[in-house]
């Protein structure tokens, strides 16, 4: 299964390298694919997967990709409870493992990495320029809660850098963390690069040195319960293709 996927992916990649137009690559997939699939994807993928879904539909007329976004943990719980989905794209390997362990999916592939960045309000009131600034006493820092993937990564960054940061709040998720910064309630927060990008002008990012930065892997897999396994596989392949990688890179994701 995995081999086929990889072959398909390389075929796509070749086609893309060859500069061919969107309709000629991957002969065979265009005429045999049809029907619908439902993709469960982590909330941080909202924008990039939204674009990927549309592009995939355009390349494969007659197919419909329904996207459902949410926290990876919640999605994993839903899949294990029998939610009718065909593909799962998780923001953490942990949640993917839960799904694999329960037998709902097999052989997940990492399709992207997300690294951390310091997010500050556009006017940067606390004048944050480095990671060390976050340890200052009067700087209000918000982090994701320790149980949330972005919280795990944030603490890893501080550990790597050897600094001690006491947040004013452990936010329930990354969106909540970000909104505290966009509204100017907090001076800084640690979120994913992609979140800083998607927040637009209200937030600016301060880079974290690569040697202390932490990243989280985004795995994807087709689900065993899928009623349209072929289409599910084709979508996963599309995400893994160069076109997919390019779209993800635009959103700020790093290659795996």
């Amino acid at each position, binding site marked *: 299964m995995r081999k086929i996927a990889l072959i398909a992916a390389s075929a796509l990649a070749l086609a893309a390298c060859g500069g061919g137009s969107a309709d000629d690559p991957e002969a065979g997939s265009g005429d045999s694919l049809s029907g619908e699939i439902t993709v469960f994807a982590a909330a941080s993928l909202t924008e990039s997967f939204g674009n990927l879904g549309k592009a995939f539909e355009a390349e494969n007329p007659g197919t419909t990709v329904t996207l459902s976004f949410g*926290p990876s943990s919640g999605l994993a719980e839903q899949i294990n409870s029998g939610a009718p989905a065909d593909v799962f794209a998780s923001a953490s390997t942990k949640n993917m493992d839960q799904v694999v362990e329960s037998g709902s999916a097999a052989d997940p592939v990492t399709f992207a990495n997300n690294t951390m960045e310091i997010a500050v309000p556009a006017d940067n009131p606390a004048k944050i320029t480095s990671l060390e600034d976050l340890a200052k006493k009067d700087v209000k820092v918000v982090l994701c*809660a*320790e*149980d949330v993937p972005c919280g795990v990564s944030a603490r890893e960054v501080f550990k790597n850098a050897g600094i001690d940061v006491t947040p004013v709040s452990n*936010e*329930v998720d990354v969106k*909540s963390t970000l*909104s505290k910064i966009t509204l*100017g*309630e907090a001076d800084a927060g640690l979120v994913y690069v992609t979140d800083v990008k998607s927040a637009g002008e209200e937030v600016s990012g301060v880079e974290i040195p690569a040697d202390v930065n932490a990243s989280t892997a985004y795995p994807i897999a087709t689900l065993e319960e899928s009623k349209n396994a072929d289409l599910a596989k084709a979508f996963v392949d599309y995400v893994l293709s160069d076109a997919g990688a390019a779209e993800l890179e635009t959103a700020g994701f790093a290659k795996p």
Partner: protein
Amino acid sequence: MSARRDTEPDTRVPWPLAVPAVLAVLFLLLPLSGLLLRTPWTELPQLLAEPAALQALRLSLITATAATALSLFLGVPLAWVLARSRRPGISLLRAFVTLPLVLPPVVGGVALLMAFGRRGIFGQYIYEYTGFSLPFTVWAVIIAETFVAMPFLVVTVEGALRSADRGLEEAAATLGSGPFATFRRVTLPLIWPSLIAGSVLTWARALGEFGATATFAGSFPGTTQTMPIYIYETMQSEPDAAIALSLVLLVVSVTVLALLRDRWLNSGTRL
């Protein structure tokens, strides 16, 4: 014949009412029993002894009670105005007051930030002159809970005030009692059962408040991390533990409601 007459006629429930009523009970009880069935009972004592859980529970109880007190202090006079004032625009005001009932709590939290946050419409001045900003403090939790829960009190008490016997207030006036004294000595005792019922609803709503609190106050153990937020965060890593903690919240609120019911609400009170 005589045996049949022993039961009052109105105790017979017609089936078009009985069937949906039974369905309603099942609908409400099944998820709760699901919770009970999936609770890891053996781990429960250990989970409950967790200082973080106790801290969150304690904070929840304190803030919910404070929010109820604040709702009483502000909401009862508001209910009085809504019930008694005949000024134009009162019905519009009523609609605004009940807005938090339909507003998604997270949106409510954002609205609170925009008003009372460090850069909020009012909050910026408070911050400017005192250096104090509400978010991330326990006060923010109380305000968020009050914002979401107070309408329950206002609606309940307003209803009671509307149906309260105005004649008794008139009688009090002829006996020399001013409007406020009448409110305190006649009206308030008359609506007492509804006041208790409204407070209980408010308290229960405040205890379970999640969205507005998480958005406006954030989450930090001991200051702003209430039980629902703690449960939500635990859900990410240990779903079973979260279920057990939910059960604790359930037991606490059911216990309090039951106690209050026996103490205050036993004589045909509308809740």
